[in-house]
């Protein structure tokens, strides 16, 4: 009998084991199932913030916040533990497989994927959750940020081109297109976004965006103000379109003037008060905590190229942006004893300095640039001087800058110091004007290669079967 009992016990144990539920749901992180299907207003907010936060991730990358400024010879970063900040910038070429050559790409496309996912899902949002006008405002915002992201990628890559991501197909690898085509694509995207923002009328965003939208002179939660931002960005894109050598777009500068004027509230040349210069849309930073997104420029290994300090005109109050270092920093053949005021890591406030995406001072200077290029130097000087004089410098007359080249140099000076350490705009300009090459620019070290663009990363090349498949298509 005992044998039967034993057998029965064994059988029961087996049966008990089978009863254990084999399904274990993931507990560490949510899955994409959480946001598929119908969106709620909270879902819209979460996904929209995902787009904005990932844009900040791109801005925080060294490939966006530092390398372009190093290439443009305003910034040094000297780190005894990481010589590649010099050896792959001013002393050598970037390695597409690692460090300085592998960044500034993926994050842009992750933002674009997040934008595409949200844009595809927005039409499924019931009106009870988000009103149609608010949906238009959200669509306009996300499309504008998608365009911004492509523009940022293009700033870094220039003639290498960028890949266009198929909107609703995460499984297909999109073509790499040339600069002209990419600019056309971005321009069309911005126009489409503008249509949505205009259609939104007096509506606001259905959620509270980060304070960079509201804290700096203009309330960008309003669709109407987002439209101004959109036009400003379009104007910046059109200036870039006009400057490209291969196929300058006819009328681009005239168009840019119109758009920038719209963005500046139809102010006449020279008519924007300096008190508005800081007005704009900003990326904001938070130090520490789980978020831990400190301003990437708050970095004690950053220095300012001594030539940038030497280039300042006497009396220019923007000189305060450059401060002495307690101890000179040197390495890999370069040395400096000055740094950017926002890079002093000893000043904790620097960790949370915002970085402008676009502010009115840049719009004024962009319009000045467009006026000069469009052959309207007096209008250009009016805008230029409104900036110059606000920093304690005498106004320039046409006699001071009689030629287009002189006008460009004057403009580049103002852009350099007004927008000092504020993104790749100087790299874009120097490159466009052919001023970043041997014979024009003094080499920083003997082996200075005059890098002008960050390569398309090796991972992208590998996935496409080799670098030979990265040739951009213009067709």
């Amino acid at each position, binding site marked *: 009998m005992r044998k039967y009992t034993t057998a029965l016990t064994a059988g029961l144990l087996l049966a008990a084991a089978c009863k254990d539920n084999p399904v274990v749901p993931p507990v560490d992180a949510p899955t994409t199932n959480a946001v598929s299907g119908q969106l709620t207003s909270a879902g819209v907010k979460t996904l929209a913030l995902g787009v904005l936060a990932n844009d900040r991730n791109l801005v925080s990358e060294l490939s966006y916040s530092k390398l372009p400024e190093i290439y443009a010879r305003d910034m040094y970063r000297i780190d005894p533990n990481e*010589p590649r900040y010099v050896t792959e910038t001013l002393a050598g070429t970037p390695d597409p497989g*690692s460090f300085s050559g592998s960044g500034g790409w993926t994050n842009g496309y992750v933002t674009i994927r997040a934008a595409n996912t949200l844009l595809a899902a927005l039409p499924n949002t019931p009106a009870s959750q988000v009103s149609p006008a608010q949906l238009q405002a959200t669509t306009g915002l996300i499309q504008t940020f998608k365009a911004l992201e492509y523009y940022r990628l293009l700033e870094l890559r220039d003639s290498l081109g960028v890949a266009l991501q198929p909107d609703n197909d995460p499984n297909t690898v999109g073509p790499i297109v040339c600069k002209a085509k990419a600019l056309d694509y971005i321009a069309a995207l911005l126009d489409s976004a503008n249509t949505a923002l205009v259609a939104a009328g007096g509506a606001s965003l259905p959620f509270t965006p980060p304070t960079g939208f509201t804290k700096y002179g203009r309330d960008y939660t309003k669709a109407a103000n987002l439209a101004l931002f959109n036009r400003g960005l379009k104007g910046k894109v059109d200036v870039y379109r006009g400057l490209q050598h291969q196929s300058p777009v006819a009328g681009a500068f005239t168009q840019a003037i119109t758009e920038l004027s719209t963005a500046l509230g139809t102010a006449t040349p020279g008519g924007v008060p300096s008190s508005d210069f800081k007005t704009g849309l900003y990326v904001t930073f938070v*130090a520490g905590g789980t978020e831990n997104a400190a301003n990437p420029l708050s970095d004690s290994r950053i220095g300012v190229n001594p030539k940038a300090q030497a280039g300042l005109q006497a009396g220019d109050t923007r000189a305060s942006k450059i401060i002495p270092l307690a101890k000179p920093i040197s390495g890999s053949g370069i040395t400096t004893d000055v740094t950017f005021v926002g890079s002093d890591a000893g000043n904790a406030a620097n960790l949370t300095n915002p970085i402008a995406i676009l502010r009115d001072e840049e719009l004024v200077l962009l319009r000045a640039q467009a006026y000069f290029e469009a052959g309207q130097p007096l209008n250009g000087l009016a805008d230029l001087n409104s900036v110059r004089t606000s920093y304690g410098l005498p106004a320039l007359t046409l006699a001071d800058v009689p030629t287009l080249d002189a006008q460009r140099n004057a403009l580049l000076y103002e852009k350099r110091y007004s927008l000092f350490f504020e993104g790749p705009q100087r790299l874009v300009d120097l490159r466009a004007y052919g001023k970043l090459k041997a014979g024009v620019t003094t080499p920083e070290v003997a082996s200075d290669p005059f890098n002008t663009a960050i390569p398309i990363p090796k991972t992208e090349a590998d996935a496409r079967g080799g670098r030979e498949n990265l040739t951009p298509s213009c067709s």
Partner: protein
Amino acid sequence: MKIRTVILGVLAVLAASAAQAQQRRIAGRVTGEGGAAEPLAGASITIVGTTIGAYTGVDGRFSVMAPSGPVTLRARRIGYTAKTVEVPAGQNEVEIALVKDVLQLEAQVITGTATAVSSQNAANAVSVVSGEQLTRVAAPTIDNALQGKVAGAIVSQNSGAPGGGTQIQLRGVSTILGNYSPLYVVDGVIVNNNSINNGLNVISGAARGNYSSSQDQSVNRIADLNPNDIESIQILKGPSASSIYGSKGTNGVIIITTKQGRAGRTNVDFTQRVGRSTLANKLGTRCFKSAQEYADWAADVVGADSPAEIADNIAAYNAAPVKCHDYESEFYSNDQLSYETIASVRGGTQGGTTYFVSGLAKQDNGLAPSDYYKKQSLRVNVGQTIGSRLHLNANSELLHTITQRGVSGNDNNGISPGNIFSATPSFMELRRNADGTFPENPSPLLAGSNPFQNADIIKTPESVFRLLGSASGTLNAYSTERQTVDLTLTGGLDSYADNAKIVSPAYGYTEASAQGALAGTLFNSDANFVNANLNGSVVHRLVMPAFTAQTSAGFRQERRQYTITQITGRGVIFPTVTSVSQAAQTFPNQNQDLVKDFAYYAQEEFFTLQDRLLLTAGVNAERSSNNGDQKKFYTYPKFSASYRVPMLPSFVNELKARLAYGMAGNQPTGGRNTFLTTLLYEGVTGARSSTIKGAENIRPEKATELEGGFDLTVWNSRVRFSATMYRKQIDDLLLQAAIAPSTGFTSQYINGGQIVNRGTELELDATPYERGSFTWVSNTTFSQERGKVTSLPEGVNPFNPGVGSFGTSYGNAWIEPGQSTTVIQSYDGCSIPLPASGRCPTASKIIALVGDANPDYVMGFNNSFTFGHAHLTGLVEWRKGGDVVNLTNNYFDGYNLAADTLTSQKRIADWRTGLPVYVENAGFVKLREITLGYDLPASLTQTLLRGTLQNARLELSGRNLHTWTKYSGYDPEVSNFSNQPLGRMQDVTPYPPSRQFLVSIITSF
């Protein structure tokens, strides 16, 4: 469900057919070899051809009921060669003398959860390492102790830091991104071998950021076990043997059997070891012979070339009292004694209670000041026989380890001593000042970092409390002369709490410069792991004159669970505060996981032709919550055959041919889902899709192995030779296929592709000389393995597995069909004429496959000599070939501070032209172990301690005493990223290797 019905049916049939026919009692005694004819307790006696048997008692005596006719008795005991004795019909008294099994020809080899066969019959090349072989020279951890002892295993240490960090690879790389560790099973319970990143990154900045990383130089937790508690280790090297472990068996299985109580007189063992470690190897540093030489260096490397700077540098050099420090000797000079105390008591009564109790206290010191590894353990094993049919066994082991490994490996904060030495001209003083403070490092290349200060003030303790427990019951449910049914139920638990801390006070020069306004770092990690197992099995043995059939079936249920909670605090101003709540900023992180596995298995072993032919067939069906389909059972079959060839020439004792085929799997460790990544923006949560695309149908990797070989024993069993060849094929690899980042995803989980590993393993065990009191026993192992990626799935291009590397400039792992799995990719030459700068532009550097991390072959030479009371044992391991990427050289070259300036500057100049100069051949020959021992003569031991002392031995031993290699780094055994399947070969300012010397007294009462 069906399986249960079948089991119940079989049991019912067996119960119905009972027949017993015992007619006489045979009594006898079993003794061991040697003049004194020492009685052997615990030897098993069976009547050949039946299931009838008995065990010997303390006096070596047994008695067994036998059929009336002539019978054959087989006597067997662990460590002795089994012997069969004919007992004629009239004889009822028998004396059996067993001979020691020096070459372990007859060790029991585990074939299933509850079954084993003698290695004489085993169809697989299973390596058995005895506890004695394991602990001959005290090793830091179990895995260290296996180095050089097992053909087919490459056992590599990650660095010289105390406390472990060792990887065992059986039969090559079997996965690219999946789990790479062999499965560890202790007394039937699957135990955990995870590595928990202990947060070093928060001060080293190796991977930057505020969290732990794979560059934390962490330890795999099998290191916790106490090697002295091990009776034997069996190594199932591949799926043909490990298929019973289903989707955890691909990387092989290491089965550890611990010491159990044994009936017999109470035995007390006590061992005391004392020793120390010394720096085994130095890199050296440049000596500046004149102030001018230094000023020239500073002008060149630092750019200090103004007249004032040159004058300052000359003055600084002239003022230095010591012109050339040997920083390594000054720093790695911890001369505290290490010790190990081991005690155990073993005893019990036959048919009653048996017990084994052991304890350990140990401290190993690291080379750097204040680095150490301490371990304490207490283990209790109790066996209880109830009646004649039920046996219960319980094990419980409590372990505590505490490790302080200091800082080593890659860093970005100028904190690794190796990194600091590579950037500090050697006339600069770093040692403690007379007033107790430390000088700020004056090197212009560093921000004050002083390793002496760091070692003094930075604490990195990691403390683990671990409880390993198991209980099993075996019921002899049914027993006749021809048949037995045994039911076994084993439950086990492996649970540990791992607490790691890092305390880096704000006033440290490195801390202050690296963290700026937020100097003062604390890190606290709490990890809790629980593995629980339940195994049930039924074994039926049928013994017939023509054959023996052993049928087993059962289930195995496993649950693995962990929670890791880590928090980093920055900006802790007060140096004595170690609470993260005082931090200005905190960075929390938590990971948790739960895995449930369930498997059924069944196996049939069939012996026939006078036990010459063994045929085995088995199947394991397993589901796991790690798989995409959590309810699906995946099946893993196995088949094997071995045949002991009869009618051999007289000098041949045994010749066995064997063939085994089996399948095993490797569970996915993620990949079922596409996660949402949450991103905070001003404290508000945003979310976007992760950059890694999931796969809903992710399934285990599938390994299929075919193994064949033969074992030959000749010349009175004095020489045994074993040869094995295998082909292991892994399909459905778990891959994260790289996809173009422009899609917004960087990779995707996918099953596909194939790796094929082929290899040869040879073992030669011999007693070349045995005369009088002199014996020489020799074991030689050889293994050679070639792994190849034979295909990648559609749409997956060759890729860098991204397991950790520093870019193609130095060398990284690379997965490409047709190439070795362990190939190293780097630049090799310049595609354009070299520019005047001597630097090839990166885009023009030619990418090539320049090396291979896998050694060409590995050999182990283990020799023991006994002469009277004296013993000498030595173990040498030879690895031929295999490459390592030596970034440490690049550190020194870049600052021109290597000892050999000419070689160094030529090397870096070559590197700039695009040559792979940092990929180095890392072959070596190491004297792993050497022991000289002396047994005190019996005449002496018997007079000592009033005769209670049985044996006493004095030993002098050493570990890793010498390495012969052309490798220019510290140690060719290195891995900056700790344990990982590929890309181990990164040498970045590691913890230097040590030599260990030990003096031991080993006594037995």
